């Protein structure tokens, strides 16, 4: 007779919620789909190539690095795919494929695996990838194309933020976007038919993804809300057009998908609020005074460095009210 299997012994709890890392990453991928597909729709093959090259190289680098260092393979958690999509979405559609590969190398190997892989990276891997490329190839990373034009032979254009940075007015932006009324600029920016990075243009579709992430409990609204609100108020303070500042560039994309990255942002509610405030302020300072027209990625990366400190701002624990609080 076969021996009866022994009873399982482990410290309680004996049941689990069923949520796992793979499912959370899948939610993020699903949330990124609308804006990714829209980017491909706007810019065609070059955008699709960038997305695919980025995903494949990220997965390749993770698997290879882990193989070489004899570490456990983690590709099933889908986090490399998420990094791959995020990196592609913050690159211009015309980025040469080999640059994308270098960006993926920086993201996965330098920013993530050197620190121990998922859960240990102090900085957002995709943004490190973008930062490395922006420093190494500033021209290519600031070359923009109008939507619905073949990138190979089309003339380049400027992003709305570029136009404003170079002293342009809302009318100049309207002209560039091909709308007649300066007031229509906001609607066009919200819907996303403009030059920019692959995934950052349609605020509407980014928000759709964000709402999905909120509905599935994947992210909390605290950080994006505090970042966008701060950016709004601070740009007002700096004498900029706050609505235009929010709707253009990568601010909303960064707030929804980058400032909510689990590993590189604070865990505690207070920390999350301050992270958003800091990222919003730095973004606007760069846009107003910095050398680049856009500052979202640096705003978030700089705040990543503050995360360990922000994590010390924990919520008031149960049972530490002063005195006896009788009715």
């Amino acid at each position, binding site marked *: 007779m076969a021996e009866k299997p022994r009873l399982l012994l482990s*410290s*309680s*709890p004996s049941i689990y*919620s069923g949520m796992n890392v793979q499912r959370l990453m899948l939610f993020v991928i699903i949330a990124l789909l609308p804006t990714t597909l829209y980017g491909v729709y706007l810019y065609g093959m070059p955008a699709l190539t960038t997305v695919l090259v980025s995903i494949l190289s990220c997965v390749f680098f993770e698997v290879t690095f882990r193989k070489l260092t004899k570490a456990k393979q983690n590709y099933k958690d889908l986090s490399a795919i998420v990094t791959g999509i995020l990196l592609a979405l913050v690159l211009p559609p015309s980025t040469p494929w080999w640059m994308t590969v270098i960006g993926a190398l920086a993201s996965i190997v330098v920013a993530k695996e050197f620190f121990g892989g998922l859960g240990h990276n102090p900085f957002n891997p995709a943004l490190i990838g973008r930062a490395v490329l922006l420093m190494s190839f500033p021209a290519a990373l600031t070359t923009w194309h109008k939507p619905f034009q073949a990138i190979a032979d089309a003339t380049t254009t400027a992003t709305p933020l570029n136009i404003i940075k170079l002293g342009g007015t809302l009318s100049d932006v309207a002209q560039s976007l091909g709308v007649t009324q300066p007031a229509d600029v906001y609607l066009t920016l919200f819907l996303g038919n403009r030059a920019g990075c692959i995934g950052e243009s349609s605020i509407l579709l980014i928000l759709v993804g964000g709402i999905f992430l909120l509905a599935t409990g994947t992210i909390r609204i605290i950080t994006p809300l505090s970042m966008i609100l701060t950016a709004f108020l601070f740009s007002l303070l700096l004498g900029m057009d706050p609505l235009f500042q929010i709707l253009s560039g990568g601010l909303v994309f960064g707030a929804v998908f980058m400032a909510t990255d689990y590993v590189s942002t604070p865990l505690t509610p207070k920390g999350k609020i301050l992270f958003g405030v800091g990222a919003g302020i730095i973004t606007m300072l760069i846009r107003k005074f910095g050398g680049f027209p856009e500052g979202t990625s640096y705003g978030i990366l700089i705040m990543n460095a503050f995360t360990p400190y922000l994590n010390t701002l924990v919520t008031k624990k*149960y049972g530490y009210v002063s005195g006896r609080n009788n009715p």
Partner: protein
Amino acid sequence: MQVKTFKGGTHPPEKKELAKDVPIEYHLSPKQVVIHLNQHTGAPNQPLVKVGDKVSRGQKIASSEGKLMIPHHASICGVVKKIEPRPQANLQDGVAIVIEADGRTEEAFLPPLDPFACTRAEAIERIKEAGIVGMGGAGFPAWMKLSPPPTKPIDLVIANGAECEPYLTIDYRTLKEQAPSVVYGLGVCLQVLGVKRGIIAIEDNKIDLVPILAEAVTDFLKGPGAGKGFDISIRVLKTKYPQGGEKMLITALTGREVPSGGLPMDVGTVVQNVGTLKAIAEAFLQGKPLIDRGFTATGSACKTPKNLVVPIGTVLSDLIPDVIQIGEDLRRVIFGGPMMGVSVPTLEIPIQKNTSGVVFMDSREALVYEEGTCIRCGRCIQACSCRLSPALLNEAILANDWDLADKLGLLDCIECGTCSYVCPAHVYLVQRFRVGKLTLRAVKAAKTKKGGN
């Protein structure tokens, strides 16, 4: 009625439907009972009987001199066969008195006592002599809760019928079938403490109990509790784990927070499980010590989910298969609920004074996970019922930073397991905190000693 709750917590599948509608069955004649000497908080008892002695149901067989003294009683008539270590639900395998039934039916109960006529000291002595401990799980002597020092005035007694652990339904059935006993027990506590205000608290998944409880309260206030000025209300709380934890219950009902390291009496409240209150009622009305208890036998590998009352010390395996039928695919047995209960290695374990349920799980349900890496999603922080930061505590413990762990409130953890339940990476959070609390206490004790030199 406003449904209140606490901050944090989680919603595990209730699974209460398995046994919820099965009336309590009584199986009071096992062939043997195994009564452990250490089934309560406090020093273990000394046996008052020796091998070969004849004992009757209700006879005191073990006691001690300690501060948290609580005696144990024979739960059946029989002969003491052995006094030796036996497997136990807390895995300590302490010394137990083994009594073999001899078929007699004598009862050596105490004389009935009117709690509303006797003195406070007499009433407390009765609750102590009846060997009553908290039956919700902790096993804290009930009389201790009813004897607060004069510096800690009490103004509220809460009957805890929240039963927030998934699967378990014995408190629900007790309230449904024996509401008058529970209300009487609550009345006794109010009388002993000299308190007017009592609350019976349930979660809103047991809302059908409200009219039953209301009727029992009305009857009590007209009957034995008449003219005392008692104000007993029924309060419905949100169904959320761990709503039945003493601290969460008090905060949900009163807004008061039990201070760190303190007891409910520090905020003027006393909380008693409804099963405990029923036992208190019986100790006065029938003079019956705590010798029987109800529990829920349930789970995916239990073919006969039901609520049972058995003599304390009834060995689980003696109930199988006549009373409880178990499937072939049994992989885990939990004494208590799935969130805080203890997984045991054998079925040769007796039902103790604090056994509220036994959950049998099959291989599909009994899962263990390899520990993953924290992805810092913060779910544990959102869910922690004590508003701690489990992810950060975990890091502090892994880094052996005991000062930080202390600062982050490691000793305030009530070990409810919510953090581990919600963790998507299956980090062994509460498991590490249990061990960590012991280490931190040792580290602190060592430090104090050093400081004294």
